[in-house]
């Protein structure tokens, strides 16, 4: 019955295959890479916010852990970039599990608070441990090498990130339409109903939080390698909010919505560059207007409009 949901994935693959051959110059290719990276992070975050109904206001903290693991470990300790990336991701997952276990027994506000606090602590640590992280000025990141093969050009990165995006979309669509995914959506719909059919609510919340932290950390590492430089701003509160905004505008509980949200809000700063300072206002206004007038987000709202009739 749900075969149709995969059509979007095929469309995405086609777009990703064609894109590098039609973009006019490297500026757009770079933009595409950053859009794809954000899309992957946002899909992970959406599994948590949109599908499971839990909020994280500190997700950039996990990005930061991944990014700095990839920057610091190879630079100061000579680790292989892949080992560094996986170590960062495991550390993020572990931290997420540690924090989430007690918190998920509580209700929404407390999780928002705890994740926010965690993000801020991570950010403060990154700013302060200057001997490792370069402090507020940030630090350079060594290039990524895979099987002795260095990934350097934007075009190479594009293919890596595009492949990851396709995998993420596919994995997420699979997950949502599975016993695990149903349990996740059910605990969002009615926590007590899901409990009485046997869903161990806390465990599912922790699992999805850990998964999204892991994915954010990996993408933090990849961003760091791709940009070649990292600063604590990458892990700050504003960045966390930006990610939440992408989820919300694209559509909660919509995988494709996450891609749309990431694409739009990655492009927005470019569009707003001429209005120095209005960026914050714009983000805030988008968040509010979206929640008030289009609480389901762009993609689900449009999808509902187009598929009216054949739903009933």
């Amino acid at each position, binding site marked *: 019955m749900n075969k149709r949901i995969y059509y979007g994935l095929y469309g995405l693959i086609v777009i990703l295959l064609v894109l590098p051959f039609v973009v006019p110059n490297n500026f757009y290719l770079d933009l595409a890479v950053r859009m794809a990276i954000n899309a992957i992070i946002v899909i992970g975050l959406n599994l948590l916010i949109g599908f499971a*109904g839990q909020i994280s206001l500190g997700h950039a903290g996990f990005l930061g852990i991944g990014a700095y693991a990839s920057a610091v470990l190879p630079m100061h300790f000579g680790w292989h970039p892949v080992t560094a990336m996986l170590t960062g991701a495991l550390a993020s997952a572990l931290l997420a599990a540690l924090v989430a276990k007690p918190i998920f027994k509580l209700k929404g506000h407390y999780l928002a*608070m705890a994740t926010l*606090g965690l993000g801020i*602590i991570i950010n403060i640590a990154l700013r302060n441990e200057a001997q490792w992280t370069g402090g507020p000025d940030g630090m350079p990141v060594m290039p990524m090498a895979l099987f002795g093969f260095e990934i350097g050009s934007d075009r190479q990165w594009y293919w890596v990130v595009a492949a990851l995006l396709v995998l993420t979309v596919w994995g997420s669509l699979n997950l949502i339409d599975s016993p695990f995914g149903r349990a996740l959506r059910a605990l969002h719909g009615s926590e007590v109903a899901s409990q009485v059919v046997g869903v161990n609510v806390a465990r599912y919340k922790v699992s999805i939080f850990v998964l999204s932290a892991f994915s954010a950390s990996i993408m933090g590492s990849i961003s760091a390698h791709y940009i070649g430089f990292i600063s604590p701003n990458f892990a700050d509160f504003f960045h966390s909010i930006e990610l939440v905004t992408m989820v919300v505008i694209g559509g909660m509980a919509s995988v494709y919505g996450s891609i749309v949200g990431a694409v739009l809000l990655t492009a927005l700063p470019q569009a707003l560059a001429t209005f120095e300072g209005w960026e*914050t*206002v714009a983000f*805030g206004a988008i968040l509010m207007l979206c929640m008030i007038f289009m*609480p389901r987000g762009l993609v689900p709202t449009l999808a509902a409009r187009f598929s009216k009739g054949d739903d009933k």
Partner: protein
Amino acid sequence: MLAEFLQFLFSGITVGATYALAALGFTLIYNASHVINFAQGEFIMLGGMLAVLFAQMGLPLPAVLLLAILVPAIVGVLVEKLAIEPVKGAETVTLIIITIGASLVIRGLIQVWLGKNTFSLPAFSGDEPIHVLGATLLPQSLWVLGITALVVVALWYFFNRTLQGKAMLATSVNRLAAELVGINTSWVLFMSFAMSAALGALGGILITPITMTSYDVGIMLGLKGFVAAVVGGLGNGLGAVVGGLLVGILEAMGAGYISSAYKDAIPFVLILLILFFMPRGLFGGKSTDRV
């Protein structure tokens, strides 16, 4: 030793009083609507920034105070009317996101209007420090503590002795029942936003002569106020005040004795610990969600 300790204590209770006012703001709104207003910190910022602006315009102190409280209160009411009312009964996530949006708009507008500079406000009654057992106390600290104490007493009186206050309390206990006995709950919502914005702004004005202010101080101050509210058991007024002072004192002690670089992390470490070990805060009661 003692002098040093006293010094940290003084600075702790002074900022703690600001956190307490912010925490009271959170508590008021939470009780009226179960919304956590993530824009609360922006009212602190607004209070401080507007006070600076009005003072620079040459207005006398009482007028500065009045205006710098009134304008944020109006902004608070606008936020409630334009952004919270239309989505009544929405999910927690939705409400959190809306108030974050409001906070970004307020902060962004101030940044565009007044710039990114740091501003200071002259102390209300001079900068001549008072010496106490080897430690020094700024006269402004006395203003902060005195006014905060007055406000707390006034709030207590309002909620326990006046009809309006009791109506607000009743709404927080059971909204439906309150509506049935004829309490206008949307007036209660309106009042709680106005009052909590005013409380935040007042804290912001009082502390600015000591800590200075800029467009972006709101997030941190607001978050610490929220930490204080949670420490005190979300929804508990007395808890909010104690929580605020506690957060302020622990932060000052931590900065003094452990690491000043990690000063801002201390409240968040505290909140994580409290959520782990005492999920309902220090003063929160137990309740069972109704099914």
